[in-house]
C-alpha cells in the first residue's frame, strides 16, 4: 500500500490561528519587514538598520546575529527566513571593501524574491544625531517622492513602488486630522537617492486648513543606487493581481455621456392599453341606447 504523507492538524487553538494567519487572504495583513545583518557590517549601516527598525517598529523583526547571506548571489537563505518569520519585506546590511556601507532593501511575493535594490550609504544622520522630539510610534507617514526620474525611468518607477511598499505602513480607512505627524521624503537626482524624515508642524493660516512647516528629525541619508534585481514584468503583473471579489461590480444601465452627465436607462413593463382610461366623453360611452343607430342622433 502506498504510504500516505501525514497531513498534521494543528493541536492547539493558538497554533491553528497562527497557521490561518499565514494563509493567503483576500484582504492581506500589513507587510512585515525583517532586518538582518550580513557577514560584515559597519557602524554606519548598523545605525541605519536600527533606525529603519524604529520607523517600522510595529511590523518588523530585527535580527542581531550575523548571517552569511549575499542576496545578489544566493537568495535562498533569505527566502527561508522570510518563510520562517512570514515577512515579505527585508532590509539587509553589509560592508565590504568593494561595496562599503551597503543596505539592501527588498520585497518578496509568495516567499520568493520580487524586487531588490542595493543602496550605498554616503551620508547618514541617525535619529539620535538630530536632537529634538520625535514622532510617536505607529503614525502613518506622508510619503513625498520628488524627481522626474520616478515617473520616466522604468527602473526608478519600480524603486518608488518598493519604497512605497516598504514605508507606507497600515492601510487606513480613517485618519485623525490632527494626527499627521511624520513625513518621509524621497528625492532622486542623478542616480542618488536622498531620504529625509521630517516632523510635521501645523501653523495657523487663517483658514480651516493649517499651514504646514517641517522639522527634520532623522534619519536622513544620501545613497547611491548600486545593483538592482527587479522582477520580470510577467511576475510583477502576477503579483499585482487583484482578487475578483474585491473588484468593484459594474453597475448596469448607468452611463456617462461626453459632457459627463450621468444617464440611466430604465426598463418599463408593457403598458396595458386596453384598460387605459382616456378622457370621458359622452359620445364614447357605450350604453344600451347607443347601440341603436337611430338613438345617436336624437341624444345630441
Amino acid at each position, binding site marked *: *500500500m*502506498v504510504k*500516505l504523507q501525514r*497531513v498534521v492538524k494543528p493541536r492547539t487553538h493558538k497554533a491553528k490561528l497562527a497557521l490561518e494567519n499565514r494563509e*493567503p*487572504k*483576500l484582504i*492581506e*495583513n500589513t*507587510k512585515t519587514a525583517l532586518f538582518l545583518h550580513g557577514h560584515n557590517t559597519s557602524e554606519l549601516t548598523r545605525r541605519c538598520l536600527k533606525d529603519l527598525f524604529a520607523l517600522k517598529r510595529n511590523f518588523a523583526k530585527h535580527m542581531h546575529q550575523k548571517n552569511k547571506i549575499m542576496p545578489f548571489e544566493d537568495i535562498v537563505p533569505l527566502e527561508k527566513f522570510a518563510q520562517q518569520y512570514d515577512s*515579505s519585506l527585508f532590509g539587509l546590511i553589509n560592508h565590504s571593501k568593494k561595496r562599503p556601507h551597503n543596505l539592501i532593501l527588498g*520585497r*518578496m*511575493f509568495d516567499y520568493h524574491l520580487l524586487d531588490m535594490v542595493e543602496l550605498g550609504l554616503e551620508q547618514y544622520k541617525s535619529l539620535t544625531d538630530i536632537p529634538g522630539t520625535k514622532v510617536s510610534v505607529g503614525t*502613518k*507617514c*506622508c*510619503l*513625498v*517622492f*520628488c*524627481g*522626474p526620474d*520616478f515617473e*520616466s525611468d522604468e527602473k526608478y518607477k519600480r524603486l*518608488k*513602488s518598493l519604497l*512605497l511598499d516598504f514605508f*507606507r505602513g497600515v492601510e*487606513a*480607512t*480613517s*485618519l*485623525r*486630522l*490632527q494626527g*499627521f505627524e511624520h*513625513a518621509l*521624503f524621497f*528625492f532622486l*537626482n542623478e542616480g542618488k537617492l*536622498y531620504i*529625509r524624515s*521630517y516632523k*510635521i508642524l501645523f*501653523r495657523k*493660516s*487663517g483658514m480651516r*486648513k*493649517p*499651514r*504646514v*512647516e*517641517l522639522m*527634520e528629525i532623522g534619519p536622513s541619508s544620501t545613497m547611491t543606487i548600486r545593483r538592482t534585481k527587479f522582477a520580470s514584468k510577467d511576475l510583477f503583473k502576477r*503579483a*499585482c*493581481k*487583484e*482578487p475578483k471579489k474585491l473588484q468593484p461590480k459594474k453597475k448596469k444601465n448607468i452611463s456617462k455621456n461626453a459632457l459627463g452627465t450621468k444617464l440611466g436607462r430604465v426598463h418599463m413593463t408593457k403598458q396595458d392599453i386596453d384598460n387605459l382610461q382616456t378622457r370621458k366623453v359622452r359620445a364614447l360611452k357605450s350604453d344600451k341606447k347607443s347601440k341603436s343607430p337611430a338613438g345617436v342622433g336624437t341624444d345630441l
Partner: protein
Amino acid sequence: MGHSASNQHKISVKENRKKKHLYFGIMALDENMDKIREIIASAEEEIKSIEVEKDIPLELDLGNLLVTDINEIDKGKFSDENEVEEYLKNLARDGVQSILNAVYELPTDTIDNNIYALIPKPTTRLPREKPVPKPKPLTKWEQYAKEKGIKKTKKPTKIWDEILKEWVPKYGYLKAAAERKKNWVLEVPENADPFEDQFRKMSEKKKERIARNEYQRLSNIARAKNVKVPKLGVTSETMKSKFEMKTALEQTRLSTASLGKFQKTLQKEKPLPERKRGEKRKLPATNNSFAGIEQERKRSLKILSKMKKSELDYEMAVNKQIKMENVQMSHTGKKNANSGRRSKRGGRQRGKSEYKALSKGLSQKIKSKGSKGSKASKGSKGKQSGGKRKRK
C-alpha cells in the same frame, strides 16, 4: 523655515484684510510701537499661504498619503550643501501641504471629539504579499450535498439522556465523562460470547470509527491535490500494471475445464487469443545412448575449433614485443625526465616526423596483413630495423 522665491504663495483676500487692519493700528497708536511690531511679526507668520503651485500639478494618492512631484529639479542648488537641505525641505513641505490640503477636503467623521478624515482606497497598485486565495476544495460529502441540494440543518448540541436523566453533549467537552458515567456496566447481548469483553469491543469500535474518519479526511485532501490514493479495503499488490491485469484476465478465461472453449465473450471484449503452447525445449540427448555420444563429440569439436588458435604470426609477435619494450623504455626514461621543463629535458621526446613514420609503418603492417608472402616479410624486416634504432 524660510521660503525660496520659486514657491509662489497667494495671499488670500481674508488675510489681506487682516493685514490692512493691523497697519491701521500702527498709525493710530504711536506709543506702543514695540508691542505692535510684535503683533505684526506674529501676524506675518500667520499670513503665509497654504497654496502650492507647481508647473506640473502634483500627483496624489490619498490612500497611501503619497504625493509625487515630477517637476524639473533645480540643479544649481546642489553646489552648496546647506542650500541643498533647505531646497529639499521646501520640496517636501510643498508635498506634505498638498496632501493635507486634499485630506482636509475629504468627508469627515467625529468620534470622541476628534475629527477623522475618511481616506479613500489607494490607487497605486502594489504587489500582494501572497497569491490570491483559491476557493477551498469541497469534500466528497460537500460535493454530494451540493449536487443533491442538501442543506445543513442546525441540530441541537445536547441530547436528553434517559438513563442519566440529564442533557448530554453530542460531542466534545463533557461527552466522554457522561459516557463513562453511563457505561459503568454493559449488557452482554443475546447469542454473544459470554466471555467476550464488551468494554474492549466498544473501545475498539470507537478506534475504528476514528481511523475511518481520519482516512476520509486524508483522502479528501488527496483528492483536492489530485493524488492517487489506494481504495479502502484489500488491495492487491500483485497486479500493478494494465498489462498484468490483462494477462490475468485472459488466464482466468482460459482456465475452465474446456480450456475456455465455451467461454462467452462480452460486448466490446476482444476474442480470446489462440492458446499458444510453449515451445518444448529439446534437451540434449543423454550420454548413455550412441546418438548421445555422437552429439557430444560434435559439440566438443565445435568448441575446440573455436578455441584453436591460428599459426603464430611472427610479424605480429615481433611488433608486439618491440612495442612493449618501447613502452617500458619510455616509462623508465620519463620517470626522472618528467619533472622540470621540457626544454631542460632536451625538447620533445619524439618528433612529429617520427610519429608520421610510425603511422606509415602501421599502414604497411595493415597492407602486409592483406597479402601473405614475401611482401609481408619485407615489411617486418623494415619494422625490425626501426625498432633496433630506437633501442640505441
